[in-house]
C-alpha cells in the first residue's frame, strides 16, 4: 500500500491503477488536483469501459501502474 498520490503532478501517458482494479492511462491533466482525464485499459467491473475516456476522481487512484509504451 502506497501513500496518497498527488494527481496534480501526473503527466499524460502515465498509467494508473484504480481502487476497483481498473487500469487507465492519463490522456490529459487539468491540474486541479482532483480529476484526471484518462482512457481505460482494463476494468474488472465493466469491460465495456475499455478504450473509453472518462474523468477519474483523485481518491479513486490507488497506485501508479507500469509505464505504457506508445
Amino acid at each position: 500500500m502506497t501513500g496518497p498520490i498527488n494527481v496534480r503532478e501526473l503527466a499524460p501517458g502515465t498509467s494508473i491503477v484504480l481502487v476497483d482494479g481498473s487500469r487507465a492511462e492519463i490522456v490529459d491533466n487539468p491540474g486541479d488536483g482532483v480529476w484526471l482525464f484518462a482512457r481505460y485499459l482494463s476494468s474488472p467491473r465493466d469491460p465495456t469501459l475499455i478504450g473509453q475516456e472518462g474523468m477519474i476522481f483523485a481518491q479513486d487512484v490507488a497506485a501508479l501502474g507500469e509505464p505504457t509504451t506508445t
Partner: protein
Amino acid sequence: MAMKGSRGYRSGLVDLQAGEISREIFVNEDIYAEEQERIFARAWLHVGHESQIPKPGDYFVSSMGEESVILCRDRASRIHVFLNSCRHRGMKVCRYDEGTAAVFTCPYHGWSFGTDGRLVGVPYFREAYHSRLDKEKWGLIEVAQLANYKGSIWATWDPAAPSFTEYLGGFTRYLDLQLDGWDGREAQAEVLCGVQKWLVPCNWKFPAENFSGDTYHNISHRSVDLAGIGPSGAGRRDMGERDVSRKLHVCIPDRGHQTILYVLPAERLPPPAYMNAPIVAEYFRHCEEEKRRRRGEEARLVGAPGEIFPNTALLSRQPRTMAGWHPRGPHQTECWRWYFVDRDAPGEVKQFLRDYYIRYSGPAGMTEQDDMENWNYAHAASRGTIARRHPYNYDQGSGTAVTDYEYQGLSVPGEVIDLTEVQSSEQPMRNFYRRWAEFMEAGDWSQLATWRGSERKAAE
C-alpha cells in the same frame, strides 16, 4: 423602514422637483439590501473585455454587484459569465484572478465544471448518487443574457431585460468613443494587463454620481493642477481641444446614462497635444486626421467622464479607463479600474499613456486620491441621526436642459445642458437618481422599459 412612506422613492427620498435627495439612500442598510435585488439583479453590468480572455479556456474572475463571477471563453471559443459558486455547497470554484483552465473544480467536495459551465465531474457519481443525478440541471449558474459590445462584455441576471443596445439607448455613441480606435476604426481597444482593485469606505453611489459628470468638483483637484502631471508636463491634462470646444452635459432620459462631452467646432482639428513626446504627438495628430476622414462630423465628439447605469464609469479620453463600483455593503465600495489603449498603437505610445494613466488614476493616482477622500468623509458624515434628516442639494441647473441641442450642424440628442458659459450643472446626477428611483420602484422590466411606448410612437 425610512422609504416605506406614502410618497415612495421618486417623490420622497429622491425628490427631483425640489432638487433634493435624502442621505438615507446612501447609508440605510435596508435600502442597500433592496438595491441588490432591484438594481444589481436586473440591470446590465460590465464584466470585462474580450482582450482579457483571448484564447479558449482563458478566464478572468470579475464581479457583478456583490458577487464573484467568472468571465471565460470555452473550448469552442464562446464567451460565458458564470456565478463563481459551486452548485453543490457554494464554495468558489475559482479563487485565482485570471488564467487558463480546462475545468473549474470545487475544492470542497470535488464537483467539476467545464468552461462551458456544464457539470462534468461528480465524485462517486455511480456509487453515492446511483448515477441518477441530472448533471444537465446542475451546471454553473449562468447569466440570463450576455452581450459582447465591441469587445466589452456585459451581462444581466434578468431574462426579461431588454437587449444591451436597447438598454444603452442613445448612449451607444459615447460607449463607442471608449471602445473604437482614436483613428475612427471600430472596436480597437485593448485592456492593458492589470486591473486595479481597491476598497473605499463609501457607498457605491458616490463614485457613480461623481463619474456621471460632476463638473463642480474641479476645486478638489486643484493640488494636482498645481503639481502638474499632464502629458505635456503641466496641469492635469492637455486642455487644447477642450479650450476650443463646447462643453456639454448629455443625459439619456429613461436610461440613466449620462456623460460630459466636448464638441469641437466644425472644420477644425483638435489643437496639438503631447508636445513633450514627438512620437505620441505625431501619432495622435495622424489618428485625428484619420478619424475626421472616416467619421466625418462624428469625429468632433470628444469624450469625458460618464456613467452607464448603474455602476460602470467611462473615460474615453486620457486617461482612457473604465471603472466598476462594486457594492460591498452600504458603507464600502470595491473599485475596479481597467485601462485601455488602441491595440495597434506603437509601443512608445502605449508606454507613454500607461505612465500617465497610473499617475492620474487609481489609488496611487494623484487625481483620484482626492476623490476618494471626499467620498470617504462625505459618506461617514452622512450616517448620523441628525445628518440623515437633511437631504443633499441636487438643484444646480434644474429646468435648463434642452432636447434639441445642435452645435454647428452636429446634433446631440438627449437632455443637454451647454456648460461652456454656465460652467456646471447637476443634470447628470438628477438623471442617474431618476433612473435609480425607477429601478427601486418598478416591479419588473415591463415597467422599467419606460421608453418603449414613446419610441414606438416616434417611429410611426
